[in-house]
C-alpha cells in the first residue's frame, strides 16, 4: 500500500505541468498570417464605419457637370444652398458624375455586411442541422440527402430566380448565398459530431446520465468552434466575391446602393477609356478577400492542426 501513498499528488507538481499547454487563442493571434490578414481587415472595418468622415461626399449624388473625370481631377461642386466647393476626385468620377472614392468607401459597408451576415447565418443554421444530423441517427440519412440537393443549387442561378420572385436587395443576396453554403457547414459539424460522440469522455457523460441537450452543448459543440471559425472566414470571403458577381450582373444589390460589384458594372461600358471605375473597387475587393483568406489560413494552422499541413 505504501506505493500508493507515495503517489499522492501535491498541487505544486500539477501546477508546474500547466505551463505546457498555452491557450490556442493566444497562439492564434501571434500567427503572422492572422496578424497580417487581421490588420487589413481591421482597416476595412474602420473604413466602413468611418466612411462619412473620410472626406467623402454623398455617394449617390449625381453631378452632370463632372462626368467621367480621371483620378486626381479638381471638381467644382455646387452644394444645395448654392455655394460652390472645390475638391479633388481622388479616384475620379463615373459616367453619372458620382464620386468613385466615396462610392468605393461606402461600398465597403455592403461587402462586409454581406460577408459577415452570410457566414453567421450559414453557421447558425448549419450548426443546428449538423448537430441533429450527427446525433440523431435516423434523421441523418434524410437530412444529408436534402443537404446534397441544396448543395447542387448554384448560388448565382438561385439569386436570379429569387430576384425574379422578390426584389433585388441585401436580404435576397444573403439568402441566395446562404442556401448553398449551409450544407458545407452541416457536413463539417456532422463529421465532428460523429467523431466526438465516440470519444470515451462523451460515453462517460452518457453513463453518468447526462441529458442529451447538455451532452451536445457541453461536450460536443465546443469541439466545433475552432473549425467553424476557420470555415466562417472562407465562407465570408466567398460570399463577398459572389455578392460582387451578382451585383455586377445586375441581380444583386440595387444599383442606387453603392457596392463594389455595382460600381464595376457601371464602369464596364467605358472600361477602356476610364479603367479607374473598375480598378479601384477591384483593388478593394481583391484586398479584402485576400486578407480574409490569409487570416483564415493562419487560423486553420493554429486552431485546427488536423487540417493544416504542418504537424
Amino acid at each position, binding site marked *: 500500500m505504501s*506505493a500508493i501513498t507515495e503517489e499522492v499528488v501535491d498541487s505544486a507538481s*500539477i*501546477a508546474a505541468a*500547466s505551463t505546457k499547454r498555452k491557450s490556442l487563442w493566444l497562439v492564434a493571434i501571434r500567427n503572422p498570417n492572422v496578424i497580417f490578414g487581421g490588420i487589413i481587415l481591421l482597416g476595412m472595418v474602420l473604413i466602413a464605419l468611418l466612411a462619412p468622415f473620410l472626406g467623402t461626399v454623398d455617394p449617390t449624388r449625381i453631378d452632370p457637370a463632372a462626368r467621367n473625370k480621371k483620378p486626381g481631377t479638381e471638381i467644382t461642386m455646387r452644394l444645395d444652398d448654392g455655394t460652390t466647393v472645390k475638391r479633388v476626385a481622388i479616384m475620379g468620377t463615373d459616367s453619372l458624375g458620382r464620386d468613385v472614392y466615396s462610392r468605393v468607401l461606402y461600398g465597403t459597408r455592403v461587402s462586409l455586411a454581406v460577408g459577415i451576415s452570410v457566414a453567421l447565418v450559414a453557421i447558425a443554421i448549419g450548426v443546428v442541422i449538423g448537430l441533429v444530423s450527427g446525433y440523431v441517427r435516423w434523421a441523418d440519412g434524410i437530412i444529408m440527402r436534402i443537404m446534397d440537393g441544396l448543395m447542387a443549387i448554384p448560388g448565382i442561378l438561385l439569386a436570379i430566380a429569387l430576384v425574379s420572385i422578390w426584389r433585388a436587395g441585401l436580404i435576397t443576396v444573403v439568402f441566395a448565398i446562404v442556401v448553398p453554403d449551409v450544407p458545407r457547414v452541416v457536413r463539417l459539424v456532422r463529421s465532428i459530431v460523429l467523431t466526438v460522440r465516440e*470519444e470515451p469522455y462523451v460515453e462517460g457523460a452518457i*453513463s453518468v446520465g*447526462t441529458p442529451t441537450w447538455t451532452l451536445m452543448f457541453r461536450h460536443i459543440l465546443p469541439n466545433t468552434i475552432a473549425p467553424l471559425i476557420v470555415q466562417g472566414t472562407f465562407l465570408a470571403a466567398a460570399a463577398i466575391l459572389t455578392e460582387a458577381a451578382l451585383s455586377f450582373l445586375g441581380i444583386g444589390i440595387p444599383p442606387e446602393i453603392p457596392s463594389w460589384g455595382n460600381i464595376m458594372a457601371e464602369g464596364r461600358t467605358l472600361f477602356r477609356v476610364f479603367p479607374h471605375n473598375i480598378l479601384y473597387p477591384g483593388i478593394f475587393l481583391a484586398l479584402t478577400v485576400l486578407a480574409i483568406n490569409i487570416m483564415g489560413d493562419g487560423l486553420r494552422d493554429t486552431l485546427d492542426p488536423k487540417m493544416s499541413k504542418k504537424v
Partner: protein
Amino acid sequence: MSTAAKKPVLEVRNLSVALPAGGDRVHAVEKVNFTVNPGEIVCLVGESGSGKSVIAFTVMGLLAKALKPTSGEILLEGENILTADETRLRELRCTRMSMIFQEPMTALNPVMTCGEQIDEVLRTHTKLDSAQRKAKIIAILARVKLPEPERIYASYPHQLSGGQRQRIMIAMALVLDPVLLIADEPTTALDVTTQAEILKLIAELQHGQGTGVLFITHDFGVVAEIAHRVAVLRWGELVEMGPTEQILSKPVQAYTKMLISSVPSIHPAHRGGRKDGETVLRTEKLGKTYAGSGFFQKARVVKAAVDVDLDIRRGETLGIVGESGSGKSTVARCIARLIDPTDGKVFLGDTEIGKISAGKLRPHRRRVQIVFQDPYRSLNPRITVGDSIIEGPMNFGLSRDEAMARARKLMETVRLDPNALDRFPHQFSGGQRQRICIARALAMEPELLIADEAVSALDVSVQKQVLELLDEIRRRLNLAVLFITHDLRVAAQICDNVAVMSQGRVVEYGAAEQVFEHPKHDYTKSLFAAAPGRNWEFGKFAAA
C-alpha cells in the same frame, strides 16, 4: 555465452541524445553504453518515456530532426553510424541493419503487394535480375513460415492478418541477411497467441543466422521469453544490465526490483472472497448482432456476442478475458447500455435494463458506471476535472456545493489532492487521470463498476498502483466489479471469477483459481500456453 569471443555487431558507447529545449528533461538518452553480440538477443526494457525507442531510431539514423545526438558513438561492426552521411546510412539499412516496427497495420504500404514491397528492397540494394529476386522473395516468405508464399507474394497487406503482416515485415528486414535486427515492440499490437508465434519465429531465425537482435519492449513476460541479456532504462539512463536470468531473479538496483515486482503473477492470488453477497448483475443469453444495412448489397451480419450468461455478486470481481475481437468489450458496453443489446436480458438487481427505453433507463444509469481504457480521452479536455466529477451527481439532483464536497472526498479516496479539482485533464499524468475517472464513476455511488481495459494503457508500476486502488475500493465499498482485460496476469491478480471469451462466446467460466490452474477448454489452454514468461515468477527475489 559462447559468443563473448566474437566481435560485437553493435556497440553503443557513451551515447547521449538531447531533447529540444522545453522538454521535461535535458536528454532523451544519457551516457548509455551497451553491446549486442552476433547471435544474441538484447532486450531494452523500460516504461514509456524511458528513451528505448530513441536509441533504436538513433542506431537506424532515423531520429527526428528535433533530437540531436550530442556525444558518444554507435559502432555497427566497427563503423561509426553517428558520423556516417545519409548515402552511407541508406546503404547500411536493410543490408547490415534492419528494423521492424510496432504497428504491422501501418508499416506496410497498402497500395503495393507484399511481394513488390520486398522486391523494392532487393532492387535498391542488389543487382539481381527479376527471376532471381522473385525466387529469393519466395524463399524468405517460406522461411518466415507464411503459408503459400506465391499467393502471399501477390497479396495486398489488407488481405493478411496482423500476425502475417508482421511476418512480412520480418521477411523484408531479413531478406538481405543483416547482422543487426532492431525490433521496436514488434508484438505489442498483436494478440497473445500471435505474439507467441512471432517471438518464436524471431528467436529461430536469429539463432539460425547468427543475427544480433536489439529487442525493445515494455513487457517483462516477453523479456523472459526471448532475451539473452537485458538492459533496463529509466529516464534515458541505463539503470542495470546483465544476463536475463540475473536481472529477473537477482536485480541489484531498487528501480529494477520495483519494476519487476510490479509485474503481476500469472498464478491467481488466493482471495478469500465472500460468495454470499446478493447478485448485482445477471445476464441471460445476452447477445449483440451487428447487421450492416445494405441498400444495394447483401447485409453483412456480425455476431459480436452470443448467449452470454454472467452473474456478479456484491463485493466480487468478475473478469472477462479474451483476445481482440472476442466480444468482451461488446458485453461490457451492452451492460452499461452504451450500446443496445439485440438478444437476451440484463438484470440489474431485479430490474431488466437491456431492453427498456432511454427515458426509463435514466434512473438506472447511476447504478452502473464504467472506466475506460484510454485515460487521455476519457475526460473532456475543456472542462476541469472537478466539473467532470460532479456532472453525474448534479444530473441526479445534487446541488453544486454538495457535489463538490463529495468530489473532494473522492479525490482523497483515489489519493489525489482535492485542491487539484479546478485543474484541467492535461495537467495530470495518465495514471492520475485514470484515478480521476475512477472518482467520477464512484461519485455516482454505483453498484457495479465496469473497468474496460482500465489499466492496459498504463505502465507496469502505475498499473500496479491503480489495480491496488481498484481492489481496495471494491473491498471498502463492497462493490461489484466487472473487469475486462486481455492481460491474463492482471486478471489473475484481481478477479474472483473469470469468463474466457472467444469469438463472441464464453468458452469457460468459473472461479479464477480453477480456470487458471486447471483450464478445461482447448482455447483457454492455448491462451495460457501463449502467455509470455508464464514460467517466471516475477518479484520472488525480495526474500533472497
